[in-house]
């Protein structure tokens, strides 16, 4: 893996507007995000020879390539398990570029989840394996599956709703600084959180990510090529995917300890191949489809010990100026939920020094994909 470390860089990022409802199709939004990222990098579409996205992405490579007039592609890849795939898209491109399979890679995600259908309502798709074991009993939505883990976590380790609120608040506070965020002008208070409606007890409305329409993309090139691009390169220092032994799907209730998920597997690989340790991380973008995922990920990636994720959030630790500022664009909870791709671009902004909630002097950023599902992570540095 010596050939991977810092061998590639993210040199362009792009995004569309984020909203509950956008008029354009997912395909059009995808194209706009990819073009914006290439323009940011100063690279012509005809130079792109690699694409990566998620298996849940509805717009195929061929559609993006022909709509935008991309060149001959020599590498393309799609990663499974929904939000677990975000960081892996960049990791696949970095590996392809580092090994000479391609020279200019673009990763993207386009999604109309704000105005489109909810995947969990499609019972024809959702009900066969593995959902035969869960859906008939009314464990219908991702929030129900994560709520089950959250209840156990709170019981076992004494974590409280105040800890979950700390997560929601940190994300909302950062969104309040980010004009592109859906929750830009909408502050959150503890009273609003505690009195909001339940979605799946113990999780309330504000423990859930936003339903969003929007698209994002980023451009990956070699370290050498990055020197000629418009922006300061943000190096892919390390990357990992994680699918633990005997894992299941959305969550795994069938092992010794369901509270240690794919984040632990990804983290072991990530730190093993990095020159950095958790203490060296200046800012983190942690996948937040639901607030408890941040507590579990803080433990999984080694920022605190087992069961200490709740306590870690106390005293403003996740806020700007805290021990580990997280989700500085607002995250999935308060900026936009586009399967975590906004976390990647926000990580790049932090290392460029252009975040709307800039952590002074940030030079290392951890970005993670969904915990619970087979996941992925990136360690970025400048």
């Amino acid at each position, binding site marked *: 893996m010596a050939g991977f470390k810092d061998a590639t860089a993210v040199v362009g990022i792009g995004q569309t507007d984020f909203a509950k409802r956008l008029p354009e199709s997912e395909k059009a939004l995808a194209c706009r995000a990819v073009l914006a990222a290439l323009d940011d990098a100063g690279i012509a579409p005809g130079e792109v020879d690699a694409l990566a996205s998620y298996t849940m992405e509805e717009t195929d490579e061929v559609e993006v390539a022909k709509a935008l007039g991309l060149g001959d592609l020599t590498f393309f890849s799609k990663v499974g398990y929904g939000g677990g795939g975000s960081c892996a898209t960049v990791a696949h491109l970095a590996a392809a570029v580092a090994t000479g399979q391609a020279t200019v890679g673009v990763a993207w995600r386009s999604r109309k989840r704000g105005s489109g259908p909810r995947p969990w*309502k499609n*019972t024809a798709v959702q*009900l*066969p*394996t*593995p*959902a*035969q*074991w*869960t*859906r*008939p*009993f*009314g*464990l*219908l*939505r991702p929030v*129900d599956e994560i*709520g*089950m*883990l959250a*209840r*156990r976590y709170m*019981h076992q380790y004494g974590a409280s709703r105040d800890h979950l609120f700390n997560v929601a608040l940190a994300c909302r506070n950062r969104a309040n600084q980010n004009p592109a965020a859906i929750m830009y002008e909408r502050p959150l208070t503890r009273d609003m959180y505690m009195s909001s*409606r*339940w*979605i*799946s*007890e*113990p*999780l309330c409305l504000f423990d859930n990510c936003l339903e969003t329409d929007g698209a994002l993309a980023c451009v990956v090139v070699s370290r050498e090529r990055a020197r000629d691009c418009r922006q300061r390169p943000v190096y892919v220092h390390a990357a990992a995917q994680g699918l633990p032994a*005997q894992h*299941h799907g959305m969550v795994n*209730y*069938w*092992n*010794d300890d*369901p509270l240690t998920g794919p984040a632990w597997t990804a983290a072991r690989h990530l730190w093993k191949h990095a020159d950095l340790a958790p203490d060296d991380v200046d800012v983190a973008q942690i996948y937040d489809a639901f607030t408890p995922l941040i507590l579990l990920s803080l433990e999984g990636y080694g920022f605190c010990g087992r069961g200490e994720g709740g306590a870690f959030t106390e005293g403003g630790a996740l806020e700007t100026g805290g021990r580990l500022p997280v989700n500085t664009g607002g995250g999935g909870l308060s900026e936009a939920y586009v399967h975590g791709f906004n976390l990647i671009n926000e990580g790049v902004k932090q290392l460029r020094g252009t975040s709307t909630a800039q952590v002074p002097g940030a030079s290392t950023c951890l970005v993670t994909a969904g915990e619970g599902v087979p996941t992925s992570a990136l360690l970025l540095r400048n």
Partner: protein
Amino acid sequence: MSPETLPALLSPVPDEDGAPFWEYAARGELRVQACSDCGEPRFPPRPCCPHCRSFAGQWRRMSGKGRIWSYVVPHPPLLPAYAAHAPYNVILVELAEAPRIRLVGNLVAGPGAPLDSVPPERVRIGARVEAVFGGDGLPRWVLERS
């Protein structure tokens, strides 16, 4: 709404590996797949034993006793059949004979009782429960009488 007009809950859509579980359940038996060679139980069902790689399996009858490992109480938006019962409980039961096997289910007042027949405040982690089978062939759970 009268019971006749309530929309139906989802039925399991079994795959080849899972079908025996549901067939036994329809007869009122809680059985779990186990390896015929090394004896390890496994869940969800699958063709091969992850411990010894044997393809020989059997369906072992369980006592039907277990403990609540965790639970949630879903509120709308939900599919209509479930919204009609919301808030209801969904529990995760650790089987007494095989603690790593945890079955998703519902804590109900008795066989055939609806999903919301036990008030959420009566559900707690660690409570001892026992499997019951109503008319729909799905295993559900009642609090064990001590």
